[in-house]
């Protein structure tokens, strides 16, 4: 039922943003960002429970925790990058938004390298020489 | 007596006057303030230049020199911050302040149509301190009484200037108005005070005690004054100061015909010199004045001589030495 509450807040916020937009665009932008943060925070709470469940599974299936940690980081980076890019795009700065996304992708790539090497190794090991 | 003046003095001069030695202060007659020149005080016939400490300075140079600002302040205080309301007094050249003190003014005169319109830049002040010496007339009055008519004789007070003439007749007026043993109930007295010296009126109100039954016509020329006084106040005794012109004599003559006793003063060393002047000659010849009072003074001592004019010399009345009647 939180979703109803959440959507209600969002709609109100957008109305206020519209009101503010024609007199003081700056405040509108700030308000939008603020609402974004608010909703994000709300969601984070939910995500953390999901992650705990995944973590237990990973521990049970004795997958090396390091992989799991990187995956979590990657998800975190993705979240933040996407959030930042959206806010900036909302403020009308397409260029900066795309730059943020690019940075996010690269960082994820960097994080993913050890996992990729492990995957390649297991694949090579699987192929009968 | 001098505290009413000290309030009007600017701080510098005020401190000097307050620092004067008590005996000088008691006999202080005049304070002469001149801008840029030494301050001078006159006391008991002598004069001195006090320095900042209030002690008479040996040479005038190191006496206290009042500055321009102090003179402006003094003028402002004297005229009670309203010079414009004292234009008449400025034209006359002196201001009378509460307590009967007369302050003579001198400065740059502004003429208009040949007459002095105003005194600008008043730079020298002559503060003459008046003292009401009560009782100095007590000795003289009995000699002036006409027993049968139960009234005062026509009297002429004769003396050179500054001999206590005005002080004497001021006291006579007070005594006549209050009444004495010989003159019960007193008499209605009319005073014509052209130079506002006898009564020293401030806005018409006499500052000296002239007795209950006295009316003062202040600042009005003597001739007209007497006529007005006779018509308006019907006094029994008319007192006038310093008669000198023919019109004055006419007016005195008029008053006498109206049956009013007259006490007048005149400048003159003695009978011979004053009878030389046309105005007085006629009055003296006709023997109108039946009493003549002559004042003379050496430094502190005063001498009053009362003579009956009808040639017969009356007992000589010597005023008590202690009396320090001062400037008229």
């Amino acid at each position, binding site marked *: 039922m939180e979703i109803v509450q959440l959507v209600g807040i969002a709609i109100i916020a957008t109305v206020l943003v519209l009101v503010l937009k024609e007199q003081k665009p700056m405040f509108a932008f700030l308000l939008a960002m603020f609402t974004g943060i608010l909703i994000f925070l709300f969601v984070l709470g939910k995500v953390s429970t999901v992650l705990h469940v995944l973590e237990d599974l990973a521990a049970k299936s004795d997958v090396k925790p390091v992989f799991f940690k990187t995956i979590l980081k990657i998800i975190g980076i993705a979240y933040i990058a996407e959030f930042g890019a959206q806010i900036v795009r909302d403020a009308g700065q397409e260029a900066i938004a795309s730059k943020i996304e690019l940075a996010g992708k690269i960082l994820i790539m960097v994080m993913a390298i050890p996992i990729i090497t492990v995957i390649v190794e297991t694949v090579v090991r699987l192929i009968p020489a | 007596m001098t505290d009413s003046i000290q309030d009007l003095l600017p701080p510098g001069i005020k401190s000097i006057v307050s620092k004067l030695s008590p005996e000088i202060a008691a006999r202080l007659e005049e304070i002469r303030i001149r801008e840029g020149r030494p301050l001078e005080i006159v006391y008991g016939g002598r004069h001195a230049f006090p320095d900042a400490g209030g002690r008479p300075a040996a040479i005038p140079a190191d006496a206290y020199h009042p500055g321009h600002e102090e003179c402006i302040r003094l003028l402002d205080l004297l005229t009670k911050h309203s*010079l414009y309301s004292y234009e008449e007094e400025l034209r006359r050249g002196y201001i009378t302040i509460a307590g009967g003190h007369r302050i003579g003014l001198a400065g740059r005169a502004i003429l208009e149509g040949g007459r002095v319109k105003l005194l600008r830049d008043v730079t020298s002040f002559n503060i003459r301190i008046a003292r009401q010496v009560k009782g100095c007339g007590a000795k003289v009055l009995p000699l002036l009484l006409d027993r049968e008519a139960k009234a005062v004789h026509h009297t002429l007070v004769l003396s050179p200037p500054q001999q206590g003439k005005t002080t004497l007749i001021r006291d006579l007026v007070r005594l006549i108005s209050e009444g004495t043993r010989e003159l019960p109930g007193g008499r209605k007295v009319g005073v014509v005070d052209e130079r506002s010296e006898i009564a020293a009126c401030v806005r018409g109100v006499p500052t000296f005690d002239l007795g209950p039954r006295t009316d003062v016509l202040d600042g009005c020329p003597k001739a007209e004054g007497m006529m007005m006084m006779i018509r308006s106040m019907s006094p029994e005794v008319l007192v006038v100061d310093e008669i000198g012109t023919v019109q004055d004599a006419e007016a005195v003559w008029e008053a006498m015909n109206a049956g009013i006793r007259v006490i007048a003063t005149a400048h003159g060393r003695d009978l011979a010199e004053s009878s030389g002047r046309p105005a007085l000659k006629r009055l003296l010849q006709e023997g109108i004045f039946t009493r003549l009072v002559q004042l003379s003074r050496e430094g502190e001592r005063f001498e009053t001589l009362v003579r009956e004019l009808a040639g017969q010399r009356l007992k000589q009345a010597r005023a008590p030495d202690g009396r320090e009647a001062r400037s008229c």
Partner: protein
Amino acid sequence: MLKTLGALLLLAAGLLFGFYQSLNLSRRPKQIRQLALALQRLETEIGYGATPLPDALRSSASTLSPPLAALFRSAADRMEESGTGRTAAESWTQAVQDGFFRTSMKEPEREALLQLGASLGISDTQDQLKHLRLAVSHLTVEEQNAADEEKRYGNMWKSLGVLGAALVVVIML
């Protein structure tokens, strides 16, 4: 409950402040006009009545509203204080310095008054009338400015007061 009460109080305070400022602005031209009238009254007292300055000040103070009348009277009292050796100019300046902040008048009127005080009472009638007329002309010019200013800023202060209070309320809430 407390918060709304607090908010209301704040709003009221803001409102009152705004109104007080605009009241001051509207009172200023009135007071200047009164002052000019009083000086003209003083002019007649001095020019024709030749009444002494302290009494002239008191009689012309009767036509004034309290803060200004108090100023004139304190000047007159200071002048009459004997023994202090204060000249008319000094007592006038001191009176203006003490009493001026109570009136809602601004700096130019103060200057005009102080300038008048410098020559009050120490010159003859013509000169006094000249100075008084000069002061009155100054004041009428000032009154014109004050009137425009009031028109322009009058309701500005009112709305600003309210908005300021609302802002503080919102921030504090």
